[in-house]
């Protein structure tokens, strides 16, 4: 079947089977490979995107379920001029990524969090990231980056 959706502000469409996962549709059909797949039990969160302004795991929904929806992925997170958005910039400034594989999901989850809770505490951030696994950073600089992106002073957080 042909499905269409607005992805990062652009109309896009492509062929999908019923069983085509949203993550596969983005990666293979729309060639948006910034969304990653790191597990098959819906836990790692590398595939988090926003559908209708809600963070979802794109490996755990069918592409056809997003037919007609507004979708946002990591490719749509930079500013209009191409510079890094606030959260992206905070991740770079605070070394919130190493291998980069989980990063798209982390940024998309962080964006959803800050929309719900503009100034989250450390524990609120850690709690919110329950569904995003990172194997590189030990989470320290991810949490710090999200606090910084929300405008909080992170100078006093130990290295």
């Amino acid at each position, binding site marked *: 079947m042909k499905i269409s959706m607005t992805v990062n502000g652009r109309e896009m469409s492509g062929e999908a089977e019923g069983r085509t996962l949203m993550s596969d549709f983005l990666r293979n059909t729309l060639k948006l490979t910034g969304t990653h797949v790191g*597990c098959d039990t819906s836990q790692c969160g*590398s595939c988090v995107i926003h559908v209708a302004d809600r963070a979802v795991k794109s490996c755990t929904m069918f592409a056809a379920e997003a037919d007609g929806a507004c979708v946002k992925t990591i490719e749509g997170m930079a500013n209009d001029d191409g510079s890094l958005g606030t959260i992206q910039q905070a991740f770079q400034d605070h*070394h919130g990524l*190493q*291998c*980069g594989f989980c990063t798209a999901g982390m940024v998309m989850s962080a964006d959803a969090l800050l929309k719900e809770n503009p100034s989250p505490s450390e524990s609120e951030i850690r709690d919110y990231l329950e569904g995003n696994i990172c194997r590189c*950073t*030990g989470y320290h600089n991810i949490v710090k980056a999200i606090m910084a992106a929300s405008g909080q002073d992170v100078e006093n957080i130990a*290295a």
Partner: protein
Amino acid sequence: MPADGGIGAATIRREDVRFLTGTGKYTDDINIHGQAHVHFLRSEIAHGKIKGLDKASAEQMPGVLKIFTSDDFAEVGGLPCGWQVTDRHGEAMQEPAHPILASGKVRHVGEPIAAVVAESREQAQDAAEAISVDIEELPAVVDMPGALEDSAPKVHDDLTSNLCYDWGFVEENREAVDEAIRNAAHVTTLELRNNRLVANPMEPRVAVGDYTSASGDSTLYTTSQNPHVIRLLMGAFVLGIPEHKLRVVAPDVGGGFGAKIFHYAEEAFCTFAAKNLGRAVKWTSTRSEAFMSDAHGRDHVTKIDLALDAENNFTAIRTETHANMGAYLSTFAPSVPTWLHGTLMAGNYKTPLVYVNVKAVFTNTVPVDAYRGAGRPEATFQLERVIDKAARELGADPIALRRQNFITEFPYATPVALEYDTGNYVATMDRLEDMADLAGFESRLAESRERGMLRGLGVNCYIEACGIAPSSLVGQLGARAGLYESATVRVNATGGLVVMTGSHSHGQGHETAFPQVVADMLGIDAGMVEVVHGDTANTPMGMGTYGSRSLAVGGSALVRATEKIISKAKRIAAHLMEASEADIELGGGQFSVAGTDKSVAWGDVCLAAYVPHNYPLEDLEPGLEETAFYDPSNFTYPAGAYACEVEVDPETGKVSIERFSAADDFGNVVNPMIVEGQVHGGLAQGIGQALLEDCVYDENGQLLTGSYMDYAMPRADDVPFYAVDHSCQTPCTHNPLGVKGCGEAGAIGSPPAVVNAVIDALQRAGHDVEHIDMPVSPSRVWHAMQG
């Protein structure tokens, strides 16, 4: 230092921009026109005899191109093992064949039996389900001591037993160590298990094989930490493809932690099948496949004895370990429990006598190989746990007992063959006591108790041997590879540089840190330096990234190549300024003549090298490009002291990490931001091992922890903000940067700190608990508290 960051600057990472915008290029992002997909039919049985395989109906399924079995690989070599260990009787280890696809028998759950190549991934999987395999199930070998009993089934029928090797080190010390332990004033004994782990880089493995029939060239895109090693092993030992006809590319790689060092069957298969079918062939692992096909880590069962004299000086250490090899020898598996483990058993202490015995055992489980730290965490854990236990038995302060036994003079030759070139264990412990506010522990303890929680403090030290390693030494020890590293520095005509390194970044930040080194040496902006890595077609032969070796070995090669550049550039500058080469100085991107105001800019020298109109052509070739291979003269020895404070919920047994402090000595540091990030990540993996992670098989060899539903990965709410510090710096004495390596420290040093803290908490609360095996899960803690 250059304005935008030379050595010592916390330069933010340039590679982050592509990762943060979704424009990284990982192996699974590579799709080759016309590619086919492979699905591996994997064994669901741990041990069995393949009596028949019927693929006729599967071959007729839609989209199927070909179904491969072991018969198709009759002319192809098996997967090689890169390290041979000689046992304590001087005999070579038992080394079984390791086929690409199971041949005759299946030996672990997840072993590939057949490979279906089809137009789509789903079609390949559909057809794989239609293959009928008749397997006669045999009793599985899972438990290590049991595997060595005479009555145990054999994993490999052509070997004499399930014993890979029985290694003793230093064998000549064996009797003296026994004697010292018999005569000691006090002996502390501890039996423990170092839990089996799964590395779990977030990017699952991927391989894409491609073949160009017109030229006969094969290309493999793969998730590897060391593409040149894969090219050498696969080309020379498996498929018989000369290296000039084989290109291996490891593009952006989403973490490795050891599991992506090794040469895997899937890589060889995709390369082979692409040529066989004339189509590119792609394999993308699922996480479920990763759990049963990526090499696992750790899995040691150990008994350690620590002997002390009447003054609490350590007099001898004896340790006996069973190390699980799994069903086959993964690429570097034999080296892990031996040379990466036994040689570290002296730790930070001046114990005169050490004897290490390791029995490596074949079982019907996934092969076990290096995982972050590789042998050194196993050594550190047992040593630092037994010291803590000894302190309790003797009523000694655990920190004071360690301090009393510290090595304080360097270089220091250990009784297990290493020579520590430098270190200052007193300084790191001093720093730790300060940063961890050990003096404030009692008040924090009181506060925890008011809330009904138990609190404990664990402290330990670690030392590791990194920057692996002198080729001549590892050759004597059984390595079938050299362990140098390479760098080519190419200066362009307009002054920009490209560094081509044999190291590989899969998160470590080479693209940022390596230019800092070059920029610092040349006095130019780091932005003028670009790094190329990961492609055998455009980088010099290198051994890759593992064992905390990139900067210590690869960075040293980079320094040597840059020194050659400077030397040649000075000759060009001398010519341009009509001065003596000996008088040329380089600073701030300018060549100047000492004692004069004459100077010529870096860019002008570069231009002259490529537009050699005014140039000493009779003495000097044009161009400015140099390569260096660096082979270190010794390992490097990062060391540190870690402290962990935990709270234990006495009702549920749940442990929470309240504080974690790490004082490390990494020698000189090029990018402190990256170094701290490496430590953070290592700490989370060490805390994960201590509290959460456990790869478990049942008695039939079935993997019980085959997904994140049962294998507990550390998550953001399992760990605290860490306090890390690397201000104690004793620079490495034998490499040009004075660096030691930082990638594995956190994973090596943290597990004993966590377990020591839990035991401390329980003992302070009156529980007579001496040890709990990792992971120290809530249920284990609760059961321990029940006595």
